[in-house]
């Protein structure tokens, strides 16, 4: 069964001049099966985050539909949770209270909120920090708390928008490991938006490549490496280089000098 599906989704925004509209994404269709992790990469400004906002029900698409668990997305739902590059922790709440934000909004009792938060914090080795405030934690720990908050509402789909791009390289490796383990253990479905090609390859079952604006899906690469819950092991796999090369080619990151669009032309 498809947990998340985009059917011919187009999003236009009114331009600053209001004369014409700006098409962020156009005719995007793809679906993610139960328990699958799909990475989405593309040049900056190609509308990846717009897609995430549509999936979480924060924006309504200009055309097309998004579906979660077969139901059309009409607004924010309990089945979808998102996580951004920014941890978005509330400085006036303790770590446990931050983790419980979603369940609290959804009307759970105080004791249930505390129970859920403490259980997740134990899972992330953060139990000792439950009563601390966000400013007392390191960037990597804060991002782990943000992941716990995302999982606390027990969503069927996780939308992750460059969740680790603001942390240092070593912390990122450890966070990638935590995420991969968590997604596998809880059998969650996830859409992972990232700039990091290696991250896309080592964390996902499938990589979708988007074009520059207006964003369209231009390629779909199944990652056939296995052991998706062990990104550290995947890093060392021989097939990774091949996938990376294909992604670089699709993203036109390196192209021959003669192919430069802005190269000077002889008169």
């Amino acid at each position: 069964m498809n947990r998340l599906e985009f059917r011919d989704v187009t999003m236009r925004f009114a331009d600053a001049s209001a004369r014409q509209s700006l098409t962020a994404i156009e005719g995007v269709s793809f679906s993610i099966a139960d328990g699958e992790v799909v990475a989405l990469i593309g040049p900056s400004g190609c509308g990846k985050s717009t897609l995430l906002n549509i999936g979480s029900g924060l924006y309504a698409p200009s055309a097309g539909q998004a579906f979660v668990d077969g139901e059309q997305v009409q607004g924010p739902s309990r089945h979808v949770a998102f996580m951004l590059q920014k941890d978005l922790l509330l400085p006036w709440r303790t770590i446990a209270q931050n983790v419980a934000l979603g369940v609290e909004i959804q009307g759970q009792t105080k004791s249930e909120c505390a129970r859920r938060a403490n259980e997740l914090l134990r899972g992330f080795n953060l139990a000792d920090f439950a009563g601390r405030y966000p400013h007392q934690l390191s960037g990597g720990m804060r991002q782990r708390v943000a992941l716990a908050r995302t999982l606390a509402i027990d969503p069927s789909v996780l939308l992750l928008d460059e969740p680790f791009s603001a942390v240092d390289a070593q912390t990122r490796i450890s966070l990638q490991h935590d995420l991969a383990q968590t997604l596998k253990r809880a059998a969650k479905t996830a859409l992972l938006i990232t700039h990091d090609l290696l991250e896309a390859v080592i964390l996902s079952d499938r990589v979708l490549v988007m074009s520059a604006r207006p964003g369209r899906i231009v390629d779909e690469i199944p990652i056939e490496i296995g052991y998706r819950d062990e990104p550290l092991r995947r890093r060392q796999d021989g097939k990774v280089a091949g996938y990376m090369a294909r992604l670089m080619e699709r993203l036109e990151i390196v192209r021959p000098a003669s192919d430069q669009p802005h190269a000077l032309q002889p008169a």
Partner: protein
Amino acid sequence: MTPISRTALIRRGTAASIALLLIFLAAWEWGPRLLGIPTFIVPPASAVYTEFVRMLVVNHLMFHTGVTAAEVIAGFILGSLLGAVFGYLLGMSPTAEFALSPYILALQIAPKVAFAPLFIMWMGFTVYPKILVAILIVFFPVMVNVLTAIRGIDPDLINLARSFTASRAQVFWKIEFPSSMPPLFASLRIGATLAVVGVVVGELVGGNFGLGYLLTFGEGQANTPMVFVCILMLTLIGGIAYLAVIWLEQRVLHYVPARPLGGL
């Protein structure tokens, strides 16, 4: 400079402050005499103290101080409440803010104390015009700070709450309201001192009670020590109001990383 511990900083700082106070009092007591300044221009500290004791008995100083303090408290609380409520309402409605902004700006530019004679004409020689000037003068900094705080909230934070299916009220109480606390308290500190200004101007303009009235009374009698006593008492009221705000701020904003002396 080597870094010093917080307790050492407080100890050294307090000692220096007390020393400065003693130097200031000594300079006040003997300085004018040494420079040949007549006592009716700058009365020495001892003369001001003597006048203070005399005023306690003869001029009901505590009654007037109490009236002024009550007006300051009433004006400060009502002005802050109104300012905060309008700040939140305008913060949540960009249309209302756009429509009202020229009028708000005009009222903000208008010198609030200039309204004092008008309010006295409307309400007579009662406490109400004084409180009203204080309300008016406290209102704007509080409203502007709250409005700016609401406008400045990271939209992703609002989206996060909305993605958790938060209602409009939940977004306000769980995100917007707590986010506005630090700027709100910054404006309350300003408001606490401004409230005293508003009340005194009201009392100077008309009435027969309050420290502002005693100020004009002392001025009429060319009683310089009396004027000094009134200024000191007004400073005392403002200082206590300011410290009360800081006391509350430290309880509400306990999650903010500690600053020496609570960022006095």
